[in-house]
């Protein structure tokens, strides 16, 4: 297993699966401005997927391209964290998930801009502006709804409680990460945790929300060992045309 390929799949699968989830909101959001913003976020994430998985395919050198990786791998070959494959829930949970992810994504990309691999540094540079904007929006929404009405507060607290156990996986470190950190290609995820906690603590304080005490973390997504039941359904939908009509071009 090539660590670079593995790492690039982790990046690209996160953006692909989250982009898919966010796109499910299209036409169904609570406010028109949110519909536009969510479609825009999904669009950015799909564009980022093309870059990450495109590079993954290139590194792999097995004749696959980004579409083949996205549309023909089965669930166990996906390397996204569990957080992004969870169903959307209500709008509050969707925005909470976005904020928890964006806060990490933004930190990682800042580090990756200094990657010793120029191709990775270039993607990080290109995508970090988009992600900074995603974070600004998701953060504002979490704060607005957390510190809004009694109902919106309760829903946002419930969302944070439900999702927080999926945050820890973002900071897991394994042999892949060690190899990449050693080569200066990518940061050791564990090293980002303090900066992340500082951010999230600030956001949640402003949102008048309480971060759960437990650091318990569900994992199994970024190494593909045990995804949730939800990923299979997501892939069934996303990959259906390519699998029903193999060999067609679209």
């Amino acid at each position, binding site marked *: 297993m090539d660590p670079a390929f593995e790492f690039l799949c982790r990046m690209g699968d996160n953006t692909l699966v989250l982009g898919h989830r966010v796109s499910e909101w299209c*036409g169904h*959001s609570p406010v028109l401005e949110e519909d536009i913003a969510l479609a825009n976020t999904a669009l950015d994430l799909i564009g980022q997927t093309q870059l990450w998985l495109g590079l993954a395919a290139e590194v792999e050198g097995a004749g696959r391209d980004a579409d083949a990786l996205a549309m023909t791998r089965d669930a166990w070959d996906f390397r996204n964290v569990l957080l992004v494959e969870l169903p959307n829930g209500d709008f509050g949970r969707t925005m909470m998930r976005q904020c928890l992810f964006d806060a990490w994504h933004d930190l990682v990309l800042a580090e990756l801009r200094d990657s010793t691999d120029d191709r990775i540094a270039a993607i990080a540079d290109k995508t970090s502006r988009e992600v900074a904007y995603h974070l600004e929006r998701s953060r504002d929404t979490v704060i*607005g709804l957390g*510190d809004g*009405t009694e109902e919106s507060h309760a829903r946002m607290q419930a969302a944070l409680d439900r999702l927080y156990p999926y945050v820890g996986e973002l900071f897991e470190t394994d042999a892949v990460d060690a190899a990449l950190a050693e080569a200066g290609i990518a940061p050791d995820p564990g090293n980002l945790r303090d900066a992340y906690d500082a951010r999230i603590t600030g956001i949640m304080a402003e949102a008048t929300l309480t971060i759960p005490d437990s650091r318990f973390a569900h994992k199994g997504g970024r190494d593909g060992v045990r995804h949730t039941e939800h990923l299979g359904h997501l892939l069934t939908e996303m990959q259906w045309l390519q699998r029903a009509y193999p060999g067609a071009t*679209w």
Partner: protein
Amino acid sequence: MYAQMIQSEKTDEDPRALAEFQARIDRGEKIEPKDWMPEGYRRTLIRQIGQHAHSEIVGQLPEGNWITRAPTLERKAILLAKVQDEAGHGLYLYCAAETLGISRDALTEKLLDGSMKYSSIFNYPTLTWADMGAVGWLVDGAAIMNQVPLQRTSFGPYSRAMIRICKEESFHQRQGYDIMMKMANGTPEQRRMAQNALDRFWYPSLMMFGPSDAESVHSAQNMAWKIKINTNDELRQKFVDQTVPQAEYLGLTIPDPDLKWNAETGHYDFSEPDWTEFFDVLKGDGPCNAERMEARRKAWDEGAWVREGLLAHARKKRAAKTAAE
């Protein structure tokens, strides 16, 4: 069209003021929100722009139906961008309507209680990927037919919204046609999907222009006010004349045995759509009316706590700011 069968509202103002107003329109001047305007002009425009806006919003649903199943990352991105554009069109149009003194929320409530309509076309289902091609090619194509002349409409904010919108609509039509090309030149199954999509969307697209209004008094008033620029039949003919060669180029057959070139008129002769079906759809009995309205109501009802939460937060912030000053 996106705004179908707009009846003009009665006006009984001072004849001299009306004549002056008409003279401004005849001179090609734009009417701006602060200018005097006949009540009928204002109310007709609210209905037309509102219906147009609702169509953009409901129009997200049939295409949104395929975003999660788009066959490639590129197609997914293009479709997302398109649906996002439609939401943006809705936003510009609601803003244009607001300048006439009606809020977006009030318009939305009229959509949800059924007192305002949206275009009949969005009550048809999108059943295969080729429908994403057919919708872009035919539906956006028909919309462009109507909206290009509306760039010259007399009401300034509406005209300016149309100018912005038309730029994006031509991109929508091109991407739709591009999907059709791929499908029509693809595998036998893809060809079958493409023909099937054309079969299902042809007549509903012709219906978008509305029934013949050459004899309608409403239409005459709206044309005098430059709220309407062409008759429904003119636009429909133009659409057929433009689309037939495009279908031929794709190698697809338009589902009308009587369609033929008429050398004398210089236009295609074609069959009228089934207007009974059109009126059924307008009444609420189209294939997807119930689903479309359910989806919009659900979005609105389940979003209430979000809108209230964000408003409450904005109020708190304003209060804190004033307290600090």
